[in-house]
């Protein structure tokens, strides 16, 4: 029991703190190990020793003797950027989900709740269907998807702001409305374009894939996720207060309207960027925050680092599965994240010790 007379930091709190550092350490090691293991796995068998020789060659310039250039390219030009992209995207989506849940004070919130996915889909479908398989107006699918995501977010913010104060409930509802609207528009495009090949690439795109990851496409999301991660890590205490609701936040000195708007714009930009570069995968942004919360608690100072690490690890392994499960090629990663995520979410829901969505 706690000794009320000692009047310092209670023992349980210190214990929790220690436990957090242990968990954090394990996860960091886990992330490094995941990257090093995942790079050895793939449809082309490459010796483990050769894999690391190639990596060391690229990083510190060790000689490459007796290793084929084709293998070196597979490791360094295909697998490595793809694994790092998985880590960045996983961390980013999980972080965006956590921030969204705090911003709208709803445990069921996820990065796509403000219609971002439907907006990005519409943009991508627009580009694919009307621009052939190449480009439209000189922009790639990525740019169109990003523009769609931003358009959807602006529409949601506008809709939620109509008729006075912007409440979180209005925002969630506006997100649903915009999703439905943009979804209909996207389906309409698919229907009138009647383009079988385009339909296939739309399907592939909406199910998400990291196959397109290259060193240069990795750059922008990495920078975005890193900056946002630093920003939100420093704002952990405010995120905690946001979870208490509008009134409590104001009485604790937080200008919640401004704060929430900033967070939503950042998450929308980041999610838009992620969706534009790898398509849509569900459940990462919803399940990872809850999974980590069930281990370290709701305090964002512990939650946020945990979410970033677990999100990265989770998506690395989901991507490994997507690469090796089918002999014929990649399985869309969205299918895998949903297949793992949905049952896991059910398990979290029905576990009695974790109070999940309040009463």
């Amino acid at each position, binding site marked *: 029991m706690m000794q009320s007379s000692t009047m310092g930091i209670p023992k*349980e*709190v210190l214990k929790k703190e220690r436990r957090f550092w242990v968990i954090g350490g394990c996860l960091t090691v886990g992330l490094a190990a995941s990257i090093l293991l995942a790079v050895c796995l793939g449809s082309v068998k490459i010796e483990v020793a050769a894999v690391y020789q190639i990596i060391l060659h690229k990083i510190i310039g060790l000689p490459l003797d007796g290793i084929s250039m084709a293998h070196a390219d597979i490791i360094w030009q295909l697998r490595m950027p793809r694994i790092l992209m998985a880590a960045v995207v996983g961390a980013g989506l999980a972080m965006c989900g956590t921030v969204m849940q705090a911003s709208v004070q709803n445990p069921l919130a996820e990065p796509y709740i403000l219609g971002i996915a439907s907006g990005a889909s519409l943009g991508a479908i627009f580009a694919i269907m009307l621009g052939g398989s190449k480009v439209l107006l000189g922009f790639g699918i990525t740019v169109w998807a990003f523009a769609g995501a931003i358009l959807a977010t602006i529409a949601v913010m506008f809709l939620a702001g109509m008729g006075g104060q912007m409440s979180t409930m209005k925002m969630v509802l506006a997100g649903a409305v915009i999703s439905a609207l943009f979804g209909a528009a996207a389906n309409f495009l698919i229907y009138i374009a009647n383009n079988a090949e385009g339909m296939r690439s739309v399907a592939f795109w909406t199910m998400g894939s990291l196959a397109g990851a290259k060193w240069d496409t990795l750059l922008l999301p990495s920078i975005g996720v890193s900056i946002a991660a630093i920003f939100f890590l420093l704002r952990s205490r405010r995120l905690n207060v946001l979870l208490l609701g509008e009134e*409590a936040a104001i*009485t604790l000195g937080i200008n919640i309207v401004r704060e929430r708007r900033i967070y939503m714009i950042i998450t929308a930009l980041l999610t838009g960027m992620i969706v534009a570069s790898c398509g849509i995968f569900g459940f990462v942004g919803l399940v990872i925050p809850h999974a980590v919360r069930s281990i370290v608690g709701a305090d964002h100072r512990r939650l946020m680092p945990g979410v970033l690490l677990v999100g990265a690890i989770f998506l690395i392994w989901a991507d490994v599965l997507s690469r090796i499960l089918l002999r014929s090629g990649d399985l869309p990663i969205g299918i895998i994240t949903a297949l793992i995520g949905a049952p896991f979410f059910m398990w979290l829901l029905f576990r009695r010790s974790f109070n999940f969505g309040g009463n």
Partner: protein
Amino acid sequence: MDLTLQNIEVTVEKKKIIKSISLSVGKGDFVGIIGPNGGGKSTLLKAVYRVLKPSNGTIMFGGENMQNISLHTSAKQMGVVGQFNTVNFDFTVMEMVLMGRMPHKKVFNADTQEDYKIALQALIQVGMQEAVNRQFVTLSGGEKQRIILARALAQQPQFLVLDEPTNHLDIKYQLQLLSIVKSLGIGALAALHDLNLAAMYCTKLYVLKNGCLIASGTPREVLTKERIRDIYEIDCDVNLDEQTGALSIVYHPLLPLHGMRCKDAG
């Protein structure tokens, strides 16, 4: 700290809920607002703790116009126990109370030994020190209310605003909560339902009905038989309790109870 409201009006969705209200709470005063449901008590308090913006009038807090005080600054001085205590996420009691330290923190500051000390002291004051590690969501309504008070105490405020703080509390904790507030000796403004408690603790009472101030003064001046009938449309007897020196209000039932008759019900 002291608080003065001058001709405050609050409009919510084009409806004027508060109509030109002026009141003042001096340093160390415990001021109560009473009145029927829907009379505007909570709305007025929300304007005071800055969730609603008055459409007219000025609020002076500690001699300064509230409009010119940042939210961050006012949160260092004003603690609030409101009616908004549903939280959908798992926080421990300690984490909840520590959030009261938020206004005193900068971006890079971690929780210090001092913060824990203050939080623990607040928990001891409300008699919840055994619950430090429990999950807030698992507490009963009354326990939650006490934790919220502890959080407000951890803010180390110079002024407290309380919106029906005794809701959900059993009688012991109703008395305890109000005694704590009183013992702080800082200014306090509270919406209260229980007239006996209001009479016992408040130095001054304001009566709010339909958004208008209809009476104010000391409990003895305000709480008369006639006025209570005016405010609540009920009958009662008001006596001075010899033992405690406090007012004691005994209500008459609206419908005759068995074996007892109300004089007016005839």
